[in-house]
């Protein structure tokens, strides 16, 4: 047992649901008790999704506990198949089904007989893997399922496209700035003359999966999702994979050069050097930014970085290598992938922190006293408490991290966005600091007679304590309205009765 207040990565089924619901016309059925379907709330709220989230629960209740699910799961699968005709239904186990140990595969096999669509059981164990690992596995599982199915039907397309092409693997729902990154990557590929063969899982149909082998190579931008799939396609069809995240100027160039090598090996005489040079020096503003005197002022400023492997590693390299900022420590909560992370940030920070305990991260921030933090929403709140500015660079995230405006983190536009993020975090910190030294914005008191809080009215003790219970941001309004009410009616003392009478009369 572990005492836990907060967690960075969610439970396994969240990963499976993220992948399943990213596909078009795929439905997930959770084997779970009532109330475990809050994934729908997250998706509907955070992603501001217009459509109903294609996730249903086959409810585990007392009755199921006593007698087993029996026909219930099978019925729910066939019902959903008839109602919505999904291409695929993914039966998703949860922590509850992990311990009930019902033979869910058997339910899937039986349901498959009566359904038009395909049915799969997500192969994830709640107690062994987290959200990220489960998502990675589920994507691989679905891809493998449709590759094998196509092979059996003999309609697998393995012939390469005539022009160089790519599969972008790992874009998913509820992923940090994934939608914007996807647009940016497509734009980048088009600038390079590379056709996008498929983007999975976001927006893809499972029927497209049999065409995956046509691509010349696979691009896996995020370390956490898609690597298993790309490795599977590599071992099955020898498709090369590029797993360099194009985040930051240097890494984007490295990613493009790797793509160039791979395409050259397959006989496409491409040369991206001119493109990289042009973008770096004149199109993207990030390289110029690091040369400008603004960025000079950031030299040697202390920062800490924490997040998922992809973003924390890339951010650490950007801060140190591209901006001359001193990264005191860099860390990740992806404990299962710590070796990779350590190798990535080697030489770019003083220390490495691998933990999923938010308390430990908070303490490490307090000890380091950096000028800026780059982390998740949790680090943002630590920053608030310690008065240190924070740029959010990784999930877990809130609704404000799903911006409507175009804000990629990857590619050349991504480097511009990151430069803004870094610069704004640090200048805000500097401004605060200067204000403190010089004693605030303006030392003259502002006099606003119209909203003066002073009054001649006497609040008795009960009413005063009641008033104090009202949240600060509306207290002033309640106080003014109540006093106006009392004055209009000639009360000299404000009692609880007067307060409530005022509330009823004027909505104070």
């Amino acid at each position, binding site marked *: 047992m572990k005492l836990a207040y907060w967690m960075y990565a969610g439970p396994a089924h969240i990963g499976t649901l993220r992948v399943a619901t990213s596909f078009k016309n795929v439905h997930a059925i959770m084997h779970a*008790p009532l*109330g475990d379907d809050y994934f729908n709330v997250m998706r509907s709220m955070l992603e501001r999704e217009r459509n109903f989230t294609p996730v249903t629960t086959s409810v585990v209740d007392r009755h199921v506990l006593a007698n087993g699910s029996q026909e219930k799961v099978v019925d729910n699968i066939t019902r959903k198949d008839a109602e919505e005709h999904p291409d695929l239904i993914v039966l998703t186990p949860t922590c509850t089904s992990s311990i009930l140990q019902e033979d869910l595969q058997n339910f899937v096999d039986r349901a498959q007989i009566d359904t038009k669509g395909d049915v799969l059981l997500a192969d994830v164990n709640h107690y062994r893997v987290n959200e990220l690992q489960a998502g990675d596995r589920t994507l691989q599982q679905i891809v493998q399922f449709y590759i094998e199915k196509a092979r059996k039907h003999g309609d697998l397309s393995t012939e390469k496209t005539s022009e160089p092409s790519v599969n972008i693997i790992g874009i998913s729902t509820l992923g940090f700035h994934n939608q914007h990154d996807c647009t940016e990557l497509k734009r980048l590929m088009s600038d390079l003359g590379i056709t996008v063969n498929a983007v999975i899982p976001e927006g893809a149909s499972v029927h497209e999966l049999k065409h995956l082998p046509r691509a010349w190579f696979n691009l896996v931008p995020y370390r956490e999702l898609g690597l298993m799939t790309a490795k599977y396609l590599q071992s099955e069809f020898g498709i090369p994979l590029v797993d360099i995240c194009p985040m930051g100027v240097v890494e984007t160039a490295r990613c493009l050069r790797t793509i160039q090598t791979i395409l050259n090996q397959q006989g496409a005489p491409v040369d991206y050097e001119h493109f990289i040079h042009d973008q770096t020096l004149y199109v993207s503003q990030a390289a110029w930014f690091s040369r400008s005197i603004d960025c000079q002022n950031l030299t040697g400023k202390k920062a800490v970085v924490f997040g998922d492997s992809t973003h924390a590693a890339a951010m650490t390299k950007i801060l140190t290598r591209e901006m001359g900022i001193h990264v005191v420590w860099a860390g990740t909560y992806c404990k299962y992938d710590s070796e990779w992370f350590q190798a990535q940030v080697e030489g770019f920070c003083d220390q490495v922190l691998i933990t999923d305990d938010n308390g430990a991260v908070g303490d490490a921030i307090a000890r380091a006293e950096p000028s800026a933090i780059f982390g998740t929403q949790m680090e943002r709140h630590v920053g608030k408490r310690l008065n240190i500015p924070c740029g959010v660079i990784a999930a877990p995230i809130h609704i404000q991290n799903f911006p409507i405006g175009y804000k990629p983190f990857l590619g050349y536009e991504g480097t511009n966005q990151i430069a803004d993020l870094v610069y704004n975090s640090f200048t805000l910190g500097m401004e605060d600091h200067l204000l403190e030294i010089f004693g605030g914005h303006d030392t003259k008191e502002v006099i606003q007679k119209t909203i003066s809080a002073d009054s001649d009215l006497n609040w008795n003790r009960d009413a005063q304590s009641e008033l104090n219970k009202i949240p600060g941001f509306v207290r002033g309004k309640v106080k003014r309205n109540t006093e106006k009410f009392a004055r209009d009616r000639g009360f000299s003392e404000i009692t609880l009765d007067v307060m409530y009478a005022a509330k009823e009369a004027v909505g104070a």
Partner: protein
Amino acid sequence: MTVAQPETQPQGLNFECETGNYHTFCPISCVAWLYQKIEDSFFLVIGTKTCGYFLQNAMGVMIFAEPRYAMAELEEGDISAQLNDYEELKRLCLQIKRDRNPSVIVWIGTCTTEIIKMDLEGLAPKLEAEINIPIVVARANGLDYAFTQGEDTVLAAMAGRCPDKAPTSDAEKGERHAIHKLLQFGRKPEDVATEERGYVQHPPLVLFGSLPDPVVTQLTLELKKQGIKVSGWLPTKRYTELPVIEEGYYVSGVNPFLSRTASTLMRRRKCKLIGAPFPIGPDGTRAWIEKICSVFGITPTGLAEREQMIWESLEDYVKLIRGKSVFFMGDNLLEISLARFLIRCGMTCPEIGIPYMDKRYQSAELALLEKTCHEMDVPMPTIVEKPDNYNQIQRIDDLCPDLVITGMAHANPLEARGINTKWSVEFTFAQIHGFSNARDILELVTRPLRRNHVLKDLGWDTLVRETVTAVN
């Protein structure tokens, strides 16, 4: 929506029960408001990452305010009983005692503890004796309960901890009664005696249900106007101040989801339950007070005028919803009371979805709903217990109600299809009880209508391409 029924049959409420495939919050969410209400408590949810992730996401920013709740996260070793439950819980509870020193630790049992049959009720008394902090066990799990019923399981467990003897000395008395103290604070004993004279002689009355402190004060004062003294509330601001409950006390619930607490108070504590409509809306508040008065043989004074005044002050809101229809998808058990109030406001209500319907505990509320429908001359709503969200979406499609009260999972998709929605969870967190707060209910109910009124000429009603409605 017309109800086609043969003339010969008396029109009554129509009850149905569907598949139970609906969206609601897990009952462990009750820790979010109960830890704030009971200031010296600590809530320990014994469950998995799934539970933790729910609390973290559903409770949003509250998590960052150093909450007095935490997860005892079960690991594989706990599930396979390689680890000793008692030792593990002892280690965590000692840590909590050291760091927070609460007056009570509430263990929230979850689905997992149910399935692996962890004997929390058995372990608690032993551990309580060993570490010297009361441990209250509530099984608020998704196998058995929905959302607000979580509070019911906690309060039912707390009911067992209320002292059964009134304190004898005055000093002790002062320690006990929080509300009492609040009302008498800083007054001379003779003033208090005068104060006491304002009450009618009646057997002690204890109210149950967790409400924000301002609402507790309002309802207490409301009864005081009728000469009724509230001897205590379950729960209180502090665990150490739980009210005395002796055999023969009268109790009354303020929320519709407290049926277990009610039956515990009746059966275990031998109390008499005053079954009344709930004080939600001016009509409900008046009926609630009248019922309590009638039990104590008091003739209520000024209630009709008071209700009338409140209605007059609500007119600007009421005129926005009069004649409009409302559909409750059902997820928090407040539905019957809210529907009854909105029908009184002049709305029609084709369907009231509700997770669980205790016809005995809610009988007075159901009767008032029926009466309200007759008086307003609107069709009786169908009450759908354990609704099926998919079917409900089809019905919403057919009925095109002016407002759907629903969970967040469906709100945005319905809005995108041109249906006005109000997020149901807000009703559990807003102050909706008593005369004074009727306005707040209508503020919530009318908000989507007011907002969409602003947008109405822009032609942005339906924002999805396909007309087919798909649901989870």
